[in-house]
């Protein structure tokens, strides 16, 4: 079983597709479900899979602390649960993570450096998911050391319709501040893309203001590589690798029958590397 928090987010969709592809080559059966952004729905889905007596459950972008009841049920039924970016918890057999603090700090320092430690920025946050929240907090910490960088506005994105919301809001900010804006920070790549559309429509270029995001989805990397839009940097979350890693664990635990402790070891967190992408190296990451 595979349960994603919100399959309409590009990232989770990527993981799901990778896992589906791998299971096809390995001859496993995989069931994919979407909890559409609701932790309670995710609880229900995990419990449904426990009822179904699957061999292993993968939870993507979940929040382990909110899944206590269902994870307990899985544990009681002896079904291992692998988390992908789902917060550390005792109840998870393993969690494959990209480090959100690290990514947040990386992109924040890049932004600051590119601004030459001086300028006005706009911030698009999303605090309802712990990962994006951590990134925002990392930015805040970095900015405490930057007296010459002024945050003009902080906008919080809604959980639905965030692309259009980011675009609309940026349009309003562009009217209000014009070219006073030097850079825009986005909690992930989708709003960064939307913001760049607004900047382009208003007739500004990369030199007037730039945008950074996190995730490294293909569209944004292409834009960075082309180097003619406002999108200048992102952090690549290696979702493909996460899926491969999860598959590897599944192979060892379910197929080969090893005990989870043996496979994973005492520390059940597995960190994946997340490189910074700019126009300098974007080409390397395009397949």
């Amino acid at each position, binding site marked *: 079983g595979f349960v994603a928090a919100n399959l309409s987010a590009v990232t989770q969709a990527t993981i799901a597709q990778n896992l589906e592809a791998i299971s096809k080559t390995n001859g496993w059966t995989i069931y994919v479900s979407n909890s559409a952004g609701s932790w309670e729905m995710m609880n229900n889905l995990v419990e449904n899979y426990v009822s179904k007596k699957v061999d292993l459950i993968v939870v993507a972008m979940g929040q382990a*602390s909110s899944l206590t009841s269902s994870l307990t049920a899985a544990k009681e039924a002896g079904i291992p649960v692998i988390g992908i970016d789902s917060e550390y918890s005792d109840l998870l057999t393993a969690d494959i993570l990209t480090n959100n603090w690290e990514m947040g700090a990386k992109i924040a320092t890049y932004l600051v450096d590119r601004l030459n430690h001086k300028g006005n920025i706009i911030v698009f946050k999303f605090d309802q998911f*712990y990962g994006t929240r951590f990134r925002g907090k990392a930015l805040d910490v970095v900015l405490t050391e930057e007296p010459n960088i002024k945050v003009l506005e902080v906008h919080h994105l809604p959980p639905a319709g965030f692309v259009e919301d980011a675009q609309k809001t940026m349009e309003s900010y562009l009217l209000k501040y014009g070219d006073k804006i030097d850079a825009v920070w986005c909690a992930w790549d989708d709003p960064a893309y939307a913001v760049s559309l607004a900047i382009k429509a208003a007739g500004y270029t990369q030199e007037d203001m730039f945008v950074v995001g996190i995730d490294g989805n293909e569209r944004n990397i292409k834009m960075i590589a082309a180097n003619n839009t406002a999108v200048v940097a992102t952090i690549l979350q290696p979702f493909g690798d996460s899926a491969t890693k999860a598959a590897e664990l599944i192979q060892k635990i379910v197929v080969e029958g090893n005990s989870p402790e043996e496979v994973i070891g005492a520390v059940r967190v597995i960190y994946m590397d997340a490189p910074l992408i700019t126009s300098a190296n974007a080409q390397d990451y395009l397949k």
Partner: protein
Amino acid sequence: MNKIGLLFQKYGTILALIGIVVFFSIMTETFLTSRNLINILSHISMLTIIATGMTVCMIPGDFDMSIASVASLSGVIVTSLILKGLGVFGSILITVGMGALFGVIAGILITRLKISAFIATLALGTIATGINFMFTRGQEVYGIFPDSFLAIAQKRVLGIPVQVFIMAVVIVVFTFAMEKTKMGKWMYSIGGSVKASFLSGINVRLLRVVGMIISGALAAFTGCILASRLGSGQPTAGDAYLMDAIAASFLGMTTIKVGRPNVPGTFVGALIIGVINNGLVIMGVSYFFQYIAKGAIIILAVSMTSFRSSESF
């Protein structure tokens, strides 16, 4: 329309539910296990409670678009209060009171300022979301909760989760209140004809406000259970319930008291939704097909009741 037609109209939806259950039982091995059935009941308990509130306010003809936002806000408030050191019972009471307050305001807007229930509750829901974010800034409320709080949704008695018992109590209480008491009768009469009720000396305004209060209070109570289940106050935990609550209430109107909102019918509606959600996952249907199947099954289930009047419009 003949007798059989009438029976179909009244119990068609229930028959459809039975049909769905039989189908899943045949198609899968695990569906018809007591564990799974309890599983389903526990999954629909919150939906049933929040949808019961919706149903009650629909009986005199109103509607509540704020239930989901109020439930989300309540989860945040109840957990904050508990972490502030208030007792579990007191915290829940205050939170439910807050939900009731939303109902009072909605009721006043609807009956005094004559704002349509749709608009009034949409606006109040937006306000509830704002208050929610003001409190939480989008962050969950997390900490060490007393066991008595977590027990509500995480403990089992006789193998059955506590929330299922709560759901049962809510269904029984509100079915009784709506079908067997004066208040319920009068709320139905308002829904049937405001004018007739008003001319019969029924306090139409008061009872419509009461309907909104019950809806708000049950939404808040659902938020508390949800917080217990998630072990934290999630700022958007309740948001997914609006559509399902509407669906359950409208499905409910196709059975038992046909054409009128009714509490046992709403439970049937919630069961249909719960059984479909669970059964499709157990069958291992791919997730996008789950959506398609869910929509199709609901339409089929409701069509069974449509041996309707012979009028041609």
